[in-house]
């Protein structure tokens, strides 16, 4: 080794430790840091899959032993809303993959645009989910212990949907105020950050409004169908047809039948009216167990979406500061992998929960 080569290699060693403001000192090279982080995030995804597998196990057991419950319960799930949500998540996966690509190529503005698109999709997903949840809760479709199916009589926007929307509204208004405060203070990067957050929270209202419009359309269509049926045939339910059903069916029977349960006052009447609305097909009260599983699975998934939104916001902030380099884009890649996993889990949840015949 000549003296110049030696000098060069010493210089390189120093360069390693000075260059790259985000290369931690315990890593020799940027590549080593990247690979370590990548192994870490893959192992995290492994624990995530095992975490969710508990719920998939509950689902599989209950479905294999009580397929009839799933068939009854599936009538309460709207596969169009579920399908649209699937496509929203798939699109967010695409924009996330594009964000990773742009970070690799150090295209700062494109990373910001793709990340904001991903975050908006996440919020749209939650908005549609909020409409689905609130619609079910209006009809008394809760977890098994609180399951109390009845016809929804209220009009206008569901109180549950309003409850869901309040935090998003507060965050939206807060982001807008923060954005313009920072602009008046001359902090341009924080203005961009908060205005992007405001756009994200706006996405929730986009999803919720879209879902609500769809739901209203569907309710109107169903009402028309019921009216058309009433014209053609006599009312399908009378006292006898409901009294003939074996008593394992819910308490509506007992309300007009022989033995009165102590609590079958107003609730029993409400269920009786729901029977008329739902037609002769009597439902097993245990479909509440399906919905316990449904709420656990989709709820845990929704929490992961919220977690992803927080992680994406952090990425966005760093993207605005222009932190990414060709040899340092690991965080975008890692959050991207997590985000794709959230998509991956939904890919399985959708057919398992919404597409049951």
């Amino acid at each position, binding site marked *: 080794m000549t003296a110049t080569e030696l000098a060069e290699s010493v210089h390189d060693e120093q360069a390693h430790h000075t*260059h790259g403001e985000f290369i931690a000192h315990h890593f020799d090279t940027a590549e080593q840091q990247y690979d370590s982080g990548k192994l870490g995030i893959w192992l995290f995804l*492994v624990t995530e899959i095992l975490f969710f597998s508990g719920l998939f196990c509950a689902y599989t057991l209950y479905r294999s032993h009580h397929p009839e419950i799933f068939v009854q319960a599936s009538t309460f799930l709207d596969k169009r809303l579920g399908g649209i949500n699937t496509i929203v998540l798939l699109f967010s996966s695409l924009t996330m993959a594009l964000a990773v690509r742009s970070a690799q190529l150090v295209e700062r503005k494109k990373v910001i645009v793709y990340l904001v698109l991903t975050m908006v999709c996440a919020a749209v997903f939650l908005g549609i989910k909020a409409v689905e949840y609130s619609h079910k809760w209006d009809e008394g479709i809760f977890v098994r212990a609180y399951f109390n199916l009845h016809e929804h009589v209220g009009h206008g926007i569901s109180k549950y949907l309003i409850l869901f929307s309040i935090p998003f509204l507060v965050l939206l208004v807060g982001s807008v105020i923060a954005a313009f405060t920072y602009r008046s203070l001359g902090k341009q990067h924080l203005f961009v950050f908060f205005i992007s957050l405001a756009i994200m929270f706006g996405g929730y209202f986009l999803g919720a409004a879209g879902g609500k419009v769809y739901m209203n359309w569907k309710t109107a269509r169903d009402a028309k169908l019921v009216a058309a049926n009433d014209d053609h045939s006599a009312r399908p339910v009378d006292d006898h047809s409901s009294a003939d059903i074996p008593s394992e069916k*819910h308490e509506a029977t007992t309300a007009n039948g022989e033995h009165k349960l102590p609590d079958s006052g107003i609730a029993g009447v409400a269920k009786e009216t729901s029977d008329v609305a739902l037609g002769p097909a009597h439902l097993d009260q*245990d479909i509440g167990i399906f919905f316990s599983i449904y709420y656990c699975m989709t709820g845990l998934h929704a929490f992961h979406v919220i977690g992803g939104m927080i992680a994406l916001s952090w990425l966005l902030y760093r993207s605005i500061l222009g932190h990414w380099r060709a040899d340092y*884009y690991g965080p975008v890649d890692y959050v991207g992998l997590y985000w794709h996993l959230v998509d991956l889990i939904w*890919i399985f949840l*959708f*057919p398992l929960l919404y597409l049951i015949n």
Partner: protein
Amino acid sequence: MAHQSSEHGHAAAGHVTPIRLLVTIFVILVALTILTVVANDWPLGHYDLWVALVIALVKATLVALFFMHMYWDKGFNVFAFLSSFVFATLFIGFTLMDTRHYQDSIREFPKSGRPDVVFPGAPTQQK
């Protein structure tokens, strides 16, 4: 060494996926989603669950291979990730085999809302 430590000029550490490929994968994924919704109405009888699951599996594979860069990733990462599915399958499979063995005795119990068997402490009912 020298080429590695230049400022930020050198090639990215990972594989850069072409936009064309990513968009193609997205289009295929949307097509499969529509297919699985449409196939839900086909008279597939007992196989409908399996058709839906196979489509979901194809979609998941596409997402993992191309969106998650698994196609270009290190073998060990792929191995670690796939091993989680092996363990999840073992978990669900063994639990299923186990519960099949005592399912008959569960069925002998009354359904909720019709307490033929009176449990100690339960509120009594007039017949």
